[in-house]
């Protein structure tokens, strides 16, 4: 039995016929740790970005998770939300993850959004490329809202007049997702929706 990914304590599991036949999903967190994450399911609508579905609110539990996943580079934590993320999509969705600049991805050793989707076993297409190495988390709200173009289409990418679903880890001012949506729409996308794992509401 694997220990809990966050507190490292053994996970107590009740033996059942479901678990015996491996019908039940293997738990990655113990009950105490999974209780800390409360689904918020915030749905917002807009013009450029037609709809955004955020699964969780940015709280203490999420802050800790994000810190350990992105900054301590704990790749294993991508498994924590794999089931939730998987269910946020249907198998017919065309998923486009928000890209990282290749240089930054190399220094982090993994691309965090794509690794989340890998964990959720949802295939994705990469249509966008980051044009610079700037980091959103280090900018003020004002700077973020006045950013120059962040993304471009990767050479040879074909955008069809269908619905695309962007994916990012955290949605704060929305600049990242809106800019990505603009690029896709200018290239001919009919509709651009987004799924973000976390919604950070600034007060």
């Amino acid at each position: 039995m694997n220990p809990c990914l966050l507190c490292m304590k053994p996970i107590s599991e009740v033996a059942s016929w479901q678990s015996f036949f491996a019908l039940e999903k293997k738990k990655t967190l113990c009950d105490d740790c999974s209780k800390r994450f409360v689904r918020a399911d915030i749905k917002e609508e807009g013009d450029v970005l037609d709809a955004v579905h955020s699964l969780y609110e940015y709280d203490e539990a999420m802050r800790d998770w994000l810190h350990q996943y992105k900054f301590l580079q704990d790749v294993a934590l991508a498994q924590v939300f794999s089931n939730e993320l998987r269910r946020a999509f249907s198998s017919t969705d065309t998923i486009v993850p928000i890209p990282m600049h290749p240089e930054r991805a190399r220094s982090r050793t993994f691309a965090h959004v794509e690794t989340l989707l890998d964990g959720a076993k949802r295939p994705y297409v990469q249509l966008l490329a980051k044009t610079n190495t700037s980091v959103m988390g280090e900018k003020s709200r004002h700077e973020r809202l006045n950013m120059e173009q962040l993304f471009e289409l990767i050479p040879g990418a074909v955008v069809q007049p269908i619905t695309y679903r962007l994916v990012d880890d955290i949605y704060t001012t929305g600049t990242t997702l809106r800019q990505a949506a603009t690029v896709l729409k200018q290239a001919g996308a009919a509709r651009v929706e987004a799924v973000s794992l976390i919604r950070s509401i600034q007060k």
Partner: protein
Amino acid sequence: MNKPFDPAVRDFLDGRIWLRQHTPFSVEIINEHIESGMIETTPGVTMKKGLFGQISCKCIRCENEDPQLFTSFDCLQCEGPCAYCRNCLQMGRVSVCTELIVWNGPRTLYPTEHALAWEGTLTKHQKRASEELYESTVRARPHLIHAVCGSGKTEILFEPIHKLLVAGKRICIAAPRVDVILELEPRLRAAFPSTKLEALYGGADVKAFEAQLILATTHQLYRFCHAFDAIFVDEADAFPYTAEKTLQHAVRKAAKPAAPIHFVTATPSDKLLADIKKKGAVSTIYRRYHGHPLPGPRYEPLWNYSKELAKGKIPKALENWIIQRLDLNEPFLVFFHEIELMMKAEQAIRQLDDRIRAVHSAHPDRKQHVQALRAGKIPGLLTTTILERGITIKNIQVAVVGAEQSIFDAGALVQIGGRVGRNVNHPSGEFVLFHNGISYAMDHARREIKRLNAGGDQP
């Protein structure tokens, strides 16, 4: 070897095993030292293919080999399959393609002039133990100081540590709990005013990396390699030291190959006693420094306490006990077996006095709350087992809620009781076990306290 090197780099790295990209020095300086052979590099994690193609990993920093604690992934840095260690992740991730560095140049020479400013006197039992401990250090054999709570264990260490410092040796006092380190730090700083001393724990503000006397949680020893001429492990039986093999390895790795590792505890496990008897020596002290016996536990039933507390009610017996403490103006600790129950109890108990607080391992203000209790600013604390050892508060009174819970083993109960009556002017006090049925551990603890008070003769 007369090659030049930067003494600052040596002072920082000597005895350490560190992430190459996380030093306080520039990349160029580190590179120069690697080229001249002063710094050696090693991969962070080694991967081996077994007989049947299964991959086994080993973390070079924390010596973890548990396959459950490694995660493999496609690394964008080394552009291939990579694996990292999750056991020591909090100290910066170590993976196959991260490099660790160790100092390979001439070793630091430590000063040999040190003052011992402690002015108390040792009892004859303490003095004997202190001499025996030094004797073992000279003969490089492990030594166990098995001394009851409140017998003055820390003072026993002063003489031997001073002699070692004067001989230019580097010393470490390690403990599994950060609370123990925080309690020890001011006492040792006062005792060794002219010695470079540093306390290392998660979140500590470290300045003197080159300190000759180091206080550290056992976790921090992951980052040392062949550094110390002697290590004293305080409260050696505390969680998680006993439960985690890698922490025991870490202590061994942090000591120089022939250096002795000593243990200090009031409640040694049978295994520790057996191990020490094979190779080392034991000093036992049954009397507290003030000569009074250890307070024995009093059993008091508290039927269905968890249901009542969950409903937000304080069981009558517990309420009376707390009110009595408040009336008598006696500081108190109430131990709980789990955080959730304690938090529910806190709300109810604060109706009696709003200054009462609860602390647990993840509590941001736990340091301040304990300080406030010591200063008499708050009347009492609710706590998990984190405060079961290492803390000394004058005239403290202690209760355990749910003493039958499995987390309270005999050792833990003896330690909790050991908080009571440590001061000469208040040599006894309340030690109540509120229970929902008497456990073997409770009886074991009561027998053990009786045995110690009788001088250790009776079984």
